[in-house]
Every structure is written in structure tokens, then in C-alpha cells.
């Protein structure tokens, strides 16, 4: 098991280097704009642009730029300076992390509890009105893009521009430590919007898995043992059906920790996703590079955690 984990971690490093190289290449070949021009002010003169280009190292060949970058990352854990903020990328990302974590954790709680409950009830009351209602509702939720759902929810329920003034709208995020009440209030809509499609997906995933599990022989055995139906469902059925859900959960959490770009942008929450969005808008390569690497890191780590968790969830799985 330990050897397996070490081997996987080495691969994580290789993978991250590849990701950084690809990002670098894409940006070099297809720049969204010239970063030096963007930083040269309203009336740039060629000399200034050339100077800025030299300062940022953009006049060096591609491979030199990449080599400098990756060397700094590996040797000093230095992700460079943001062109637009003139601050270290590392501290920028870390300062944005709490908002992203807040958004992710709250959404996880909502979508797991709603998704698992809805999925289990749907599977057990299969073909009932409740099942059909849940499944149609989940189809709608999965189909609705989160930016659209976010804007609609703001137009309907936010205190500033909404039809019904219920929840705090966009731009209201404050840190948890600054004001817990306002932190909570400002995140309710983003949580719901982010959780909606995921809850729907989890409900459908669990439903199909549970329906399959409940037709297994060991469920018949559990019933023949005289267990109460509730125990048969939760301890025997859901226990067997939950494995793929946990897998999806790990990946989704990893993905969201890398920044929920759309939801953070719609609600203007200063998270990592919003930072990445701003980086792309301003051709801020170090920020793009940093946030992509950061997101990739969470995804590959989440994959590793899921694979390890598998060994605990399913005793038949062994790693060597």
C-alpha cells in the first residue's frame, strides 16, 4: 500500500510538469493578448513595451521562459509574480483559497445530503410519483448550466435585484472570520446553485446503483435473516451502492477546490476560480499557470485519495 502511494505520488509530479508545460505552450502559441502591451498604460510607446517585455522575460525564447518558470517552482516553490497585481502568485492563490473552500464545503454538504437521500428514496420507491418527480427534477437540474442558474437565482431571489428579496446577492461575500453571519448569508445562493446539478447527478447515480444492488442475492439473504427493511436498505443496499458515489465525490471536491470558476464569477466571490478568470481576462500568464497547476494538483490528489479510499470501501480491492 505504501509503495503504491509513493509510486502514485511520483506520477503526480510528472503529471503536473506535463500540465504546466501544456499550459505554457498554449499561452505562448495562442496568447489572448500581449501582456507587455496591457501593462504599458494608455499611451504605450514601443520602447516602454520592449522594456516591460524584457523585465517580464518575454523576450527570451520559449524554452528559456519555461525552464526559468519550472526551475523556480521546483526549487523555491515560487510561482512567479502576477503581471496585473505585482504580487506573488502563491500568496494570491492562498489568499483566495478560503473563499473557494467555503463555497466547496457548503455545497458538498448540500449536494451529498440531498443527492443521497433523493437517490435512495427514488430507488426504493421506484416508479412511484415521488421517484418520477425526483428524476424529472434532477434532469432539469443537470441540464441547467450553473452560470444560467446563478443569474436566474440572482434575478429571482437576491436582495438587491431579485423579484423576491430573500437572499444576499452577488458581491456580498465576506470571510468567515470577519462575520460568520454574513459569510453564511452571502453563500446560500452560491451553495444552492453549485449543489443543484451535482445533487441531481448524485441522486441519479445512487438510484441506479441502489436499484441494482437491491436485486442482488445478498439483499435476499439480508431479508431472509429477518433484518428490518430499513437496515436491509441502508446497511446492505446503500453500503454496496455508495462506492461509485464516493468516487465521484472525491473527484468533484478536488475539481471544485481548484476553483468553481463560473459560480465564483457570477456571484463575484473572490476565490481561486475568480482569480483564474481574471488572469485569463488580463493575459496574466503566471496567474493562469498557477491556478491551472493548483487545480490540476487538487484533481490528481483527489484521484489518489479516491483510489486509496477504494481499498477501504471495497475489501476486495488490494494495491501492491
Amino acid at each position: 500500500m505504501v509503495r503504491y502511494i509513493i509510486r502514485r505520488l511520483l506520477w503526480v509530479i510528472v503529471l503536473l510538469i506535463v500540465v504546466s508545460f501544456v499550459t505554457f505552450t498554449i499561452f505562448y502559441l495562442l496568447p489572448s493578448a500581449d501582456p507587455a502591451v496591457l501593462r504599458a498604460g494608455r499611451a504605450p510607446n514601443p520602447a516602454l513595451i520592449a522594456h516591460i517585455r524584457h523585465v517580464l522575460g518575454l523576450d527570451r525564447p520559449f524554452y528559456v521562459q519555461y525552464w526559468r518558470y519550472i526551475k523556480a517552482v521546483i526549487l523555491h516553490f515560487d510561482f512567479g509574480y502576477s503581471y496585473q497585481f505585482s504580487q506573488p502568485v502563491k500568496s494570491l492563490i492562498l489568499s483566495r483559497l478560503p473563499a473557494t473552500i467555503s463555497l466547496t464545503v457548503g455545497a458538498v454538504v448540500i449536494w451529498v445530503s440531498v443527492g443521497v437521500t433523493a437517490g435512495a428514496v427514488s430507488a426504493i420507491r421506484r416508479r412511484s410519483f415521488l421517484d418520477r418527480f425526483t428524476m424529472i427534477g434532477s434532469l432539469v437540474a443537470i441540464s441547467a448550466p450553473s452560470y444560467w442558474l446563478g443569474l436566474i437565482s440572482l434575478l429571482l431571489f437576491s436582495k438587491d435585484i431579485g423579484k423576491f428579496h430573500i437572499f444576499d446577492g452577488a458581491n456580498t461575500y465576506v470571510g468567515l472570520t470577519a462575520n460568520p453571519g454574513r459569510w453564511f448569508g452571502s453563500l446560500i445562493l452560491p451553495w444552492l446553485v453549485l449543489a443543484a446539478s451535482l445533487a441531481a447527478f448524485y441522486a441519479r447515480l445512487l438510484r441506479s446503483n441502489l436499484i441494482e444492488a437491491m436485486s442482488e442475492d445478498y439483499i435476499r439473504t439480508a431479508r431472509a435473516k429477518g433484518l428490518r427493511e430499513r437496515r436491509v436498505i441502508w446497511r446492505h443496499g446503500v453500503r454496496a451502492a455508495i462506492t461509485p458515489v464516493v468516487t465521484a465525490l472525491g473527484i468533484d471536491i478536488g475539481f471544485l477546490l481548484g476553483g468553481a470558476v463560473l459560480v465564483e464569477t457570477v456571484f463575484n466571490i473572490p476565490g481561486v476560480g475568480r482569480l483564474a478568470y481574471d488572469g485569463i481576462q488580463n493575459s496574466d500568464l503566471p496567474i493562469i499557470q498557477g491556478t491551472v497547476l493548483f487545480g490540476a494538483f487538487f484533481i490528481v490528489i483527489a484521484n489518489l485519495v479516491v483510489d486509496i479510499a477504494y481499498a477501504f470501501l471495497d475489501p476486495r480491492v488490494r494495491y501492491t
Partner: protein
Amino acid sequence: MSPLLDVRDLRVSFHTEDGVVHAVDGVSYSVDTGRTLGIVGESGSGKTVSSLTTLGLTRSRSTTISGEILFEGEDLNTMSADRLRRIRGNEITMIFQDPLSSLHPFYKVGWQLVEAMRTHRSIPKAAARERAAELLDLVGIPDPRRRVDQFPHEFSGGMRQRAMIAMALANEPKLLIADEPTTALDVTVQAQILALLDDLQRRLGMAIIIITHDLGVVAETADEIAVMYAGRIVERGTAEQIFNSPQHPYTWGLLQSIPRLNTPRGQELVPISGRPPSLINRPSGCFFHPRCPYVREAHKRIDPRLEAVEGDPGHEVACLLEQEVRSRIWRGLQQGRTPAELAALAQPEAVSQTGQAPSLAEGPSA
């Protein structure tokens, strides 16, 4: 005294999109403490459904169940779901065909045994674990203390079935229903499992119902045998009666499809031709008539009832052929003739010769 389990005129039908499936159609049988009943039939003959119904496991909105299932004089069929649940896994337990899929893959074997015990009696966890190891020992699993902490996939097929049996014995049941307990196992392991069941019955004195498609399985173990076809019992008697003077053409077919060591070399096993009938659109008359080599025109209209075999108390058969004709055909089959050769014996013109069998029947040994 009434028997431990007395099933009377049990009927189970499932309402499906394709129509009503008459899975069990007027079945009666009983089994007493210390005795073994074998229920034999092909898949789809209703043998499993009848036993699952005993435990209330077929109850659902789309199922119609009628008849009586008297267990110690109480009708399980009309019992509340919760009362029946307390009997299930406690006084009546069941083991199934495929021991790998019947054990939960994610829980240790010991945990599953402990759960079976603690569902029905308040016993401390440690004591239950101790007893789990004892039970594994009882069913012949070596090193039981280590084995309780293993998962089902770490057990071999035979071991898993032993573990299932241990789980079924955990609450000292009065009745054990074994549904195809050996079908998924190797032949040598089959024999071990059957011997184990026999031995446990002698030591613990419970009643056993063995459900199987293989008459060979119940040959050694069953006291009484009921042969089921298309949801009905077509023949019933002691094991001796069924094996020595079987009366129903379907039973003959089952007997002839068992390989025997003393079968003459080169003689082929005779399979029963055709397929089991649909339980939605059942054949007219005798349900077996489409597959019966000895069918007469009248059998396609008349529905036979289970009747006593003359001169053989306790032996019953549902066949429209005359007893005399049946014995002659069975003798012919034992002499190695094929059903096709003997079919003529069953025809009315042959029978009308008042017992004078046509020359065909007088084989060289006659």
C-alpha cells in the same frame, strides 16, 4: 400432532406487464421435526417461489398469495410482516444457491453471523463473535477464529456455503430451507455439504427442506420427495417410492437424466425434450402434455389431480395414464428402452387389449 410446517393449497401468482404468472398453483406439503423434504423440479417449476413465500419474501403489491402456511399451527401467510420477520432468520432460516453472491461482499463473515444473531436475540457483541467462531467450527471450517475476520471473497466456494449454513444455524432454527444448496459447487464439495446438512440435522434435530433440480441430491438425504412441475406437485412419496416405483413421466425423465455409475457404457442419458411451459399461458389439460412422450388426445383436455397410487400408501401422482400402463412403461425404461419405443404402450389401442401388451413391450428379457 400436526407437523412443524404444513403448507396447504398454496397459490402464488405475480402480476407482471406480460400477464399473470401462476408460479405456484395449489401446492400442499408438510415436513416434521427431524425429517427432510426434498422438493424437486426444473427452474421455473415454482419450488423456490413456494419456499420464499413461506418466509414472506414474495409479498408485494403485485403478488397474490392464497392458501395456508401453518408453522407450529400458526398461519404465516396471514401473519403481520413484523411478526413474520421475527420468525424469519430465527425459527425458519434459508440458504441459497450461489454462496458467493449470497454473502455481502463488503462485510466480514463474522460480522454477518453476528448480525444474524443480534437481530433476533440480545446477546453481547463479544459473546456473539465467540459463537460465530463456534458456528464456523461446527460447519467444519478450519481455523474458525481467523476465519471470522475474513471477507467472503477470501473463502472458497464450499467454505462460503458452509458459512451460509453457519449463519442459518446461528439462531438454532426449527426449519432450514436449502434452496439448491449445492448447485454452484463442485461435485466433491456437493457431497460434503449434503453430508454436513445430514449430520447437522441429526445433531440439532431440525426439519430441512431441500430444493433442487437434481434428484441425485435428495437421493441420500430426503425422507420424502415432492416433484414439482409448472407450479404444481405432480408426484409425491417417500424417497424410496420415488426412486423405486416412480409413477409420473416427468419423474422418469428426471431419473433418467441422472448419470449413474452402473449405466451401461454407451447408453446415453435421456434428456426431457422440450422446455418448461410458460407460467403465464399454461398448456391446456395436463401441464406436462406438450413434453410427454406418452400423451393421448384426451390428456390435452383433462387436468389431472394428485391421486393415491394403489397399493402404495403415501405415494401420490397426478397422471392420467392407468397405473398398469405406467408400471409397464417404467419397466421398459429400466430395461434401457427409449421413451420413443415405449410411447405406443400408452396409446388407447394398446391398453384396450386388457393388459395384453403388444409385442414391442415384451423385450428380450421378458
